[in-house]
């Protein structure tokens, strides 16, 4: 196998651990799309994301009439 030189500088990925002081804090900051940081929190993160997503969808539905 041969390799080519890669002149382009490596770009860092936008993968970050979520740092929150409490689960309320996570819930407040979580977005509808979720994030890898929230999934990395495991069961708690997954449940909070789904709860927030459902809440946001329900709000939107209410707004739409």
């Amino acid at each position, binding site marked *: *196998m*041969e*390799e*080519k*030189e*890669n002149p*382009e500088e*490596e*770009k*860092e*990925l*936008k*993968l*970050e*651990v979520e740092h929150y002081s409490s689960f309320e804090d996570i819930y407040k900051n979580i*977005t509808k*799309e*979720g*994030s*890898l*940081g929230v*999934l*990395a*929190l*495991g*069961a*708690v993160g*997954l*449940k909070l994301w789904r709860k927030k997503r459902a809440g946001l969808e329900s709000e939107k539905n209410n707004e739409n009439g």
Partner: protein
Amino acid sequence: MKMGKKTAKKVLLIGWDAADWKIINPLMDKGMMPALESMINDGVMGNIATLDPPLSPMLWTSISTGKHADQHGILGFTEPAPEGKGIRPVMITSRKVKAIWNMLSQSGFKTNVVGWWPSHPAEPINGISISNFYQRATVEYGKEWPIAPGGVHPKSKEEIFKELRVHPAELTEAHILPFVPGAAKIDQEKDKRLSSLAKIIADCSTIHAAGTYILENEEWDFTAIYYDAIDHFCHGFMRFHPPQMKGVPDEMFQLYKGVVQGGYIYHDMMLSRLLQLAGDDTTVILMSDHGFHSDHLRPAGIPKEPAGPAWEHRNYGIFCMKGPGIKKDERIYGATLLDVTPTLLTLFDLPIGKDMPGKPLVQAFEEIPGLEYVDSWEDVPGECGMHPSDMQRDPIAELAAMQQLVELGYIQKPDENVAKNIEQTVDESRFYLARVYMNKNEYANALPMLEDLYKRKGKEVRYAFRYAKCLAALEKIDDSNDVVQKIIGHETKEYPALFLLKGTLEFAKGNNEKALELLKKTESIDSKLPQLYQQIGFVYLRMRRPNDAENAFKKALENDPENEQVHYGLSSTMLRKKEYELAAEYALNAVGLLYHYPRAHLNLGIALAKLGMFDRAVEAFEVSLRMAPGLIAAHKYLSYIYLVKLQDKEKADLHIEEIKKLRANLKKVNA
């Protein structure tokens, strides 16, 4: 036998399939894997040697049982389905011996296992068992997605775990873009890689959710969680990993170059949560079953054969352990997959089976623990949570799991002809079993299987090649040569590995010049072939040309610095050059990479003896003899050291007696 008293408070075993220090180290240097870095600072780390064949279901079962595959019975990715109905993914019901969670269950410990490969159907252990069929999405997103029957034990917990699964279609761009920032440019009709990526992320997030739920909400003494995603990220995207490989278009490289790195970083994020939930009083082990080539050793192509992707696997995986009583910030050497179960049993103060070929990694402990043994855990009575023989099946989940194996390239798309599929599966299992025997140096056991495969399917180069190697190992050099000659005869392609083997055979016959000629021919076809320069080095060594040998071995080392045979070759070269400190250093490198290497311990002993370090030399010789009692050279050195240097005539006489016995045996064999 002690039962139920433990020194470790709790143990968490985390499996990262295919994780490799070669990728992790640069990421840690950049601060991109802080959780693993903190774990290493608080504990021990090192390489862990894999087994052959390096196929994950076989390896993870060796890890969990402490036994080779001929003992545990898991022989590949697939197996014939009951009643001759075709083939199916390998099931836990084919495992013939107890796994660590069975031993711990029957010793009264609360034990959980998540996603182990294979673990379907989930075993009825004293705790929670989540099978490797649990995470696979079998239906479209939004439709009723039932748990595969046997996916969760106990059944009463099914509803909890059902809700913890992430469907690939549930993911959003927030989950995909960190891996592939240019995802929007991809025509997903033509390029299905994003869909594969989503499956990998969803599957490992599901396993992680189940694992973290257990750690947080259930009582436990031992929990094992297996993540297969790094292996899948690597098989799918390693060819796009920097530096750019020749043949990879710029556009594809730019799109996918961050996926493998992203996979590791995501695992570090998950590890951070696991360590937080485990707490400081838990012993945590993180390990992989093999490594994965990520540099110039990446193969240019994958052979189109069953288990072909395993060519990308590297011989050394990762091992690290931290917790109460474990040394801090130290490196350990010589670990193998077979050492994990004995180490876990030691952590729980339970006896090690004498039928387990591995050893507990006592070098990792601050105080050397007392070790106890039983003949075999198979004879220890009690409810261990293994399955009864009659077991339920789930054809839909089996189909989904099969599909994933096909997508990864581990198995070919099943043929419509059922009988042909079954025959192919059985042949593959027998081929893998033969390789297991060869890996154990039990060539006589491997030979009949390879002979049968060669007679029926001799045109398949991999069967013929292993058969030739096995014959050579049994010193049937002419027969081996015939097989190689036939392959060269009917193959239109010039396989450098065949010329290498032919050169090795000439070397075995003592034809050094002819061997060198063939090896030089191999070099002209493919100078990067693994084992080429090391073989040239050994030829030069026997031709008493140590400087040429040194040059050849050093070329081999440039190609792969973690090849234990090359370090061994260099230690032999340095002994020949009377450079004993270097000889000791290279021998130590060899045993550091692969502890079970009797000839390297022998070289170490010789070098230490020449340096006048007789006590340490005796230790090295004794180790070599424990591994290979027939090493006459070790007995010779020991008899001399005991008689002349240590004035212990009694011990010297014991070794002289052994030499006489071994020589008499050799005479008999030769006669």
